[in-house]
């Protein structure tokens, strides 16, 4: 589904990603783990076409999307959930949900069914209650739900989620885990940045450890759980 080859990225003189190669198969949940500054967020931004100083190739569904702008990548089925959740303050909750165009209206029929607005509201009743409020009047957890629901409504095939559980209560983290498993069952693929390695091991299939802009290790769930203590220490949590 997604194949990244030799991806490098710079911020001016500083290199943030060094020759990163990885792949994500359809229906998987794959996490990126690593310390702050390891290049995880930059990697997702490069996949979305948001980082200007990048080289290397990104193939999505067999097509080289490296030269495409962000909106074209989104319309091909990449759903982006940024690290700050990216909820618009000048848009109501409902407008936040309706802003991104639904994939498939232009004839790309296959892939997971886009969520209807009704389904979003049934799954997240709180969003219905607050649908006329500005997006940023929601709590942190609700904003995260909104950001997830927003890309599910487009029928995105691959979610790029930048630390969806950061700063949220254990209860909300559990809820997000439930949603990720549910969308996976519906055929959505997820590439997830996650510092909470325990949570990562409960939702994901595979894990990549990033350090100083490189993928230094690839781990499966058993390895992550066996090395949880070591990893936590390494991540400085």
């Amino acid at each position, binding site marked *: 589904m997604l194949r990244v080859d030799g991806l490098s990225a710079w911020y001016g003189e500083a290199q943030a990603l060094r020759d990163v190669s990885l792949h994500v198969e359809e229906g998987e949940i794959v996490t990126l783990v690593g310390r702050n500054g390891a290049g995880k967020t930059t990697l997702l931004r490069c996949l979305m076409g*948001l980082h200007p100083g990048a080289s290397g190739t990104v193939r999505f569904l067999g097509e080289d999307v490296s030269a495409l702008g*962000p*909106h074209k990548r*989104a319309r091909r089925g990449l759903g982006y959930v940024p690290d700050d959740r990216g909820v*618009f*303050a*000048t848009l109501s909750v409902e*407008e936040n949900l309706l802003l991104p165009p639904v994939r498939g209206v232009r004839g790309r029929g296959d892939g997971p069914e886009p969520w209807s607005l009704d389904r979003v509201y049934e799954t997240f009743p709180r969003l219905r209650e607050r649908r006329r409020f500005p997006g940023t009047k929601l709590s942190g957890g609700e904003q995260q739900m909104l950001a997830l629901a927003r890309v599910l409504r487009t029928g995105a095939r691959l979610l790029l989620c930048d630390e969806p559980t950061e700063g949220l209560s254990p209860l909300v983290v559990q809820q997000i885990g439930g949603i990720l498993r549910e969308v996976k069952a519906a055929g959505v693929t997820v590439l997830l940045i996650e510092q909470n390695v325990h949570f990562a091991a409960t939702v994901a299939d595979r894990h990549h450890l990033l350090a100083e802009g490189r993928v230094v290790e690839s781990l499966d769930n058993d390895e992550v759980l066996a090395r949880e203590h070591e990893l936590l220490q390494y991540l400085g949590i």
Partner: protein
Amino acid sequence: MLQQAFNGLVGGAFYALLALGLAVIFGMLGVVNFAHGAFYMLGAFGSYVLLDSYGVNFWLALIAVPLALGAVGVALERLFIRRLAPLDPLYNFLFTFGLALILQDLVKREYGVQSQPYPRPSALGGSVDLGLFTYPAYQVFVLAVSVVVCGGVWLVLARTRVGMIVRAATERPELTRALGVDVARWVTPVFGFGVALAAFAGVLAAPMRAVNPLMGSDLIITVFAVVVIGGLGSVFGSVAAGFAVGLVSALGNYYVPSLSQTLVFILMAAVLLWRPAGLFGREEAL
């Protein structure tokens, strides 16, 4: 006193229309359009030339001139501003500033610096009894039209899909693109629309203000202050601040004439000390 306040609101009508155009352009493109005053001036001159040389009346000019200058704006955005946008913002500052000087000097060369007369449209020649005082009908018309246009733009921004995209792209252009919205497609029409609004204000100004090549540059400094007071990129803030600044400068002119030129900037400094992002601005938008 009441009459002064009314004068202020009429003056504010022009500030509001100009600030509204500047705000949508800044919000959507991140470009401070220094040529905005020049388009206002061209709007007034356009209607003067149409009447003087071709006998085209005010009402037709009020439609045709903004459309024509809006098209010029579209061409400018396509040919120049779009190409300069990825570079340092200074390039577009310099481009629009240079453009303003060129347009102003071209008009100056043709018509000199003296003011050209433009008669009021005959239907609005009289005055209106507003109860407490009578007031020239044309000025009442200007105020009403400005309120209707600003309200209309607000409705479009608040209630339509285009408006939603403009708001989202103003707040976070990059994220809006990452969500699948083709922001670039909307940039050109928004720029053209902002320019057309400036031209519209210029046509409205022709019958009541001196039509001369410097009318834009005289006004635009205050309009920049208005936009800053309202909050950069905030559409509602720009319009509200436009009328407020009109009121303050008219009343200031009446009560403390010695301060009339500086009062707006004192107000701006005070607002910025109190709220650095302007009255309706968001801090992160800066």
